[in-house]
């Protein structure tokens, strides 16, 4: 809401400039900024002219000595209307005038000027002006100019929190300022009269709380006076005619939306407030037709004549020929108005206020204020009135315990101070020992319980008065990180060292995208804003693959990313970790010219990374149920404590068609790890100082035989605690022409050691033979 700074002053007196007022309001929870400001100045203060001399080098210029009360300045000035003793606006060096004109110290015809005396035009106060702006000779010196000018106005923009509909008016804002500055608020004087006798309104819905209607005759529709138009304009409301403008003016002034109907256009003179009929239509004042539904409230004869609280109908609107009008000041259910406004996509100044709640008392005050203004301005006379109170209003009374204020806030505020603060908030108070009974004014429908009163106290006292005081004492001990948390941390740090970057993708994807990866969604969004938010991601692959494609398209040659976050599949919400790796492993380097090696991420290299980052109790096994997005021949499972917790492999060429190199991907379901387990602690084993004896053997196996089976035979022998201590695979031979069709060759380096003595050749040979025999016997793997 936009308001005039000057008009605000007529409701409550204060000495604050627009900027200070804005920050004072902000400090009590009403975010305020100065939007338009004739006084868009900095560093312009009031100053007194002490002396005027002729400029030695220029006939038309003067040298002035001026003082802002603290310091004297010499100023070169060309105006003729100045004389000693006058108080004038002084733009000091560094001052900013409208249009961003900056004042600097400068030499004018050889004499230094420390600023500028300003005219109204230069200050942006007038289009044309002659000479320096001479201020009242009682003006204080050294005051910033915006604080001494009454005839210039600023517009303030007020942003309220949803609970504070009561400040959406001049009166409401004035009440807040009054409460903070301890000033009495002046409400416009209202003349009421004892008319009644109107019996034409009927309320048929509990969504209408109160309805005050009145008939005013003998009016003359015309243009509004300037002062009303000015106020409307500052709040961004278009002036229409005196009647409509008065209803809007009263709404701005008091916060109560009003509506006026042309009585001539009402056929039956019987008005019903009722739920709309399904599919009923109305053309509103904005000229558009709206289709209503039964959850909306309307003011109707046979046909609706207004959408309650939102907008009136065009047909019954006030026009040039209106002589008698029907004035409405009502209270409608705030939720109903909000829903109607949203559903129709039709918001108005009226709906904005009803949604945030209006006041029982003010509804009547506003009615009379409008009647008075119409009579003054448009010459109308009230003929009849009725006040239907559909839902009785009961005042809220709250018990405030003084000791509770301390318990919540943590610092002492005396009872007297509490009472003073609450009085200025217009509460009726009854003090009973350590308890205060607070009766809340009808416009504060946000105050419902004790703690709301406590907030009011500290809000008005000022959050800056809360002492900054650290509590001495013992903090609770914190829980240590979970197993899953530590595992993730381990992954992140290790991958970072391996050149991976951490990615974050949004949690949604499109159904179309999922099909590509052979994935199904488990959670669909009922109300997505766009297709991008259709379903929740059932895997991290959609995002990471999209990132890969983006980066390739940007010319990045190798992409390594990891992500951890939630995925949403048939098991529910799952913590998941994934990585994607593509193309050259090592960075380009001038030395590669001589070394000529730069591996690419393939199944083995990627698998190596997985093996490297996994804690030792994880294992890699055959992937019996690979996800559809993997290359069936290049995939494996990650197993933890006998449970498959993840898969990795090369992405199916079906997906990566068009991409030059293989794409490695791995996804681990962290939620399937047990939550509270401990990391296995490695136990130290003594090691022999004696040297290892190394032997190489090459064996031939069927290609179909999983390598892990050969490994198992070797590991089993090692487990027996003999002299075989370690092995490594150093070559894989796949040339079937040389080793036979369907065969594959492996070369191992075996390490032997005896903890107590140096081994002899015979001992090593015997052990190796027994290994070969086992391989042959169990797996038909033979020495090459």
């Amino acid at each position: 809401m936009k308001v005039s700074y000057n008009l605000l002053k007529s409701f409550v007196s204060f000495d604050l400039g627009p900027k200070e007022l804005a920050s004072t309001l902000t400090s009590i929870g009403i975010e305020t900024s100065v939007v338009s400001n004739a006084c868009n100045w900095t560093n312009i203060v009031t100053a007194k002219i002490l002396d005027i001399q002729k400029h030695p080098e220029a006939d038309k210029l003067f040298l002035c000595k001026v003082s802002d009360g603290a310091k004297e300045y010499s100023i070169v000035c060309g105006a003729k209307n100045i004389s000693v003793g006058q108080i004038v606006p002084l733009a000091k060096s560094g001052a900013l005038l409208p249009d961003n004109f900056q004042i600097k110290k400068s030499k004018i015809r050889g004499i230094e000027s420390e600023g500028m005396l300003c005219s109204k035009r230069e200050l942006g106060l007038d289009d044309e002006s002659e000479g320096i702006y001479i201020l009242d000779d009682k003006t204080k010196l050294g005051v910033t100019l915006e604080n001494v000018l009454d005839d210039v106005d600023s517009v303030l923009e007020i942003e309220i929190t949803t609970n504070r509909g009561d400040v959406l008016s001049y009166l409401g804002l004035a009440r807040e300022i009054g409460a903070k500055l301890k000033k009495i608020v002046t409400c416009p004087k209202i003349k009421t009269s004892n008319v009644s006798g109107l019996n034409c309104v009927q309320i048929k819905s509990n969504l209408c709380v109160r309805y005050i209607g009145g008939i005013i005759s003998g009016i003359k529709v015309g243009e509004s006076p300037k002062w009303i138009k000015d106020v409307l304009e500052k709040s961004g409301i278009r002036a229409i005619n005196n009647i409509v403008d008065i209803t809007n003016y009263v709404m701005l002034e008091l916060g109560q939306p009003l509506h006026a109907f042309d009585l001539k256009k009402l056929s039956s003179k019987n008005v019903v407030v009722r739920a709309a009929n399904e599919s009923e239509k109305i053309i509103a004042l904005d000229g558009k037709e709206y289709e209503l539904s039964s959850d909306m409230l309307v003011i109707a004869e046979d046909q609706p004549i207004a959408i309650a609280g939102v907008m009136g109908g065009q047909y019954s609107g006030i026009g040039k020929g209106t002589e008698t009008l029907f004035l409405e000041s009502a209270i409608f259910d705030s939720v109903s108005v909000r829903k109607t406004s949203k559903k129709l996509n039709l918001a108005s100044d009226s709906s904005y206020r009803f949604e945030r709640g209006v006041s029982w008392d003010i509804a009547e005050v506003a009615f009379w204020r409008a009647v008075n203004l119409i009579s003054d301005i448009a010459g109308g006379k009230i003929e009849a009135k009725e006040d239907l109170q559909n839902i009785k209003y009961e005042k809220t009374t709250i018990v405030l315990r003084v000791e509770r204020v301390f318990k919540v806030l943590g610092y002492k505020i005396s009872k007297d101070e509490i009472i003073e603060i609450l009085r200025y908030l217009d509460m009726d108070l009854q003090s009973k020992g350590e308890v205060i009974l607070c009766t809340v004014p009808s416009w504060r429908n946000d105050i419902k319980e004790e703690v709301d009163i406590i907030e009011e106290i500290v809000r008005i006292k000022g959050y800056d008065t809360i002492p900054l005081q650290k509590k001495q004492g013992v903090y609770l001990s914190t829980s240590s990180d979970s197993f899953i948390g530590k595992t993730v941390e381990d992954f992140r740090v290790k991958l970072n060292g391996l050149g991976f970057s951490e990615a974050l993708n949004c949690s949604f994807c499109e159904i179309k995208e999922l099909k590509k990866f052979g994935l199904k969604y488990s959670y669909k969004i009922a109300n997505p804003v766009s297709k991008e938010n259709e379903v929740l991601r059932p895997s991290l692959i959609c995002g990471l693959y999209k990132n890969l494609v983006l980066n390739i398209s940007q010319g990045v040659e190798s992409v390594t990313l990891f992500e951890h976050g939630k995925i949403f599949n048939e098991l529910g919400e799952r913590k998941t970790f994934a990585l994607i790796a593509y193309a050259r492993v090592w960075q380009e380097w001038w030395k590669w010219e001589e070394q000529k090696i730069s591996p690419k991420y393939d199944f083995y290299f990627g698998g190596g990374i997985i093996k490297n980052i996994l804690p030792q109790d994880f294992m890699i096994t055959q992937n019996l149920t690979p996800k559809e997005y993997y290359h069936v021949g290049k995939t494996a499972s990650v197993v933890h404590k006998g449970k498959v917790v993840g898969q990795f492999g090369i992405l199916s060429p079906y997906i990566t068609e068009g991409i030059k190199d293989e794409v490695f991907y791995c996804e681990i379901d962290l939620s399937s790890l047990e939550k509270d387990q401990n990391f296995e602690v490695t136990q130290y084993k003594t090691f022999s100082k004696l040297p290892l004896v190394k032997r190489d053997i090459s064996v031939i196996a069927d290609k179909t035989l999983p390598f892990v089976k050969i490994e198992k035979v070797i590991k089993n022998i090692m487990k027996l605690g003999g002299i075989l201590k370690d092995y490594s695979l150093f070559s894989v031979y796949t040339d079937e022409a040389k080793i036979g069709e369907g065969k594959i060759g492996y070369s191992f380096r075996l390490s032997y050691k005896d903890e107590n003595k140096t081994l002899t050749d015979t001992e090593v040979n015997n052990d190796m033979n027994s290994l070969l025999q086992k391989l042959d016997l169990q797996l038909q793997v033979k020495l090459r």
Partner: protein
Amino acid sequence: MNNNIEEIVKEAILQIKTADLKTVENIKIKYLGKNGALTQILKSLSNFSAKDRKNIGSKANSAKSVIENEIESRKETLRKTLLEEKMQKEKLDYSSDFYFPFSKGSFHPIMQTIQDICSIFKSLGFSVAQGYEIETQWYNFEALNIPKNHPARDVQDTFYLEGTEELLRTHTSPGQIHVMESQKPPVRVIVPGRVYRNEASDATHFSTFHQIEGLAVDEDITFVDLKAVLSDFIHKFFGYGIDISFRPSHFQFTEPSAEVDVQCVFCNGKGCRVCKNSGWIELLGCGIVHPNVLKAVNYDSEKYTGYAFGLGVERITMFKYGIDDIRLFYENDLRFLKQF
């Protein structure tokens, strides 16, 4: 004889001083070898009287060790010089392109911020808890004192899941409820996590973002404590010089509520485009836990009080690094990610 030994030592030292690696070996033979000058003397000791023998013997032996030492130290010097020359020849360009096979890894700025904030709060005695991203209406709204028909519950802002009553949490505050349901006071916890808002994306809005929720409940927790803890946190995160301001605000689940502003980090409070000339940046929302929230988890709202706060991770991260478009966080362009 004694003079003779001294002469020998003098002569030997003179020769050693100018010897190279080859000649130094010859000198060694000449004096200390089988037929070397000193060896000769030692061999001839039997020709002297017992008294002289002892005297000359000890002199000769010490002369031997003097020469040996000289030779060793000469050798050491020569070896050093040689290596020195070799190294000079091998000198490489320090300004050249150094190399590490893997490119530099990076952590996502959002995750970094979360970690930084969590570790500050851990040092202030908070535990870290995890919440759920799929929530019920009860946890996301009712338990937090957001009744049916409250504007915050409008379908427009919340992602609802098809076929259920569930939704994607719109804030991390449901985490408060889960924590309080699972334990008795005292509570001192933060809940970092992902939250969702159903709105069109632009430079400052995205459907997915992150928050960190904080909660402390005990018998004697007050607004004073809230102010102290958050001021401490902000100073630890942004530096001790920064100005902080608490101003009243409104949240359904806290009463009194406050918005915390910090001095704009871009202009040091002078006013700039980022802070819309106000000199201040809105940092987080907080307040005293509303009694209705405590009642929802069966805490005695008379006995216990608490404070809660919530901050937007994206917002803080954008301020920290001067990032002007929230969508950059979710594109994962490596040219962006590698900067962190």
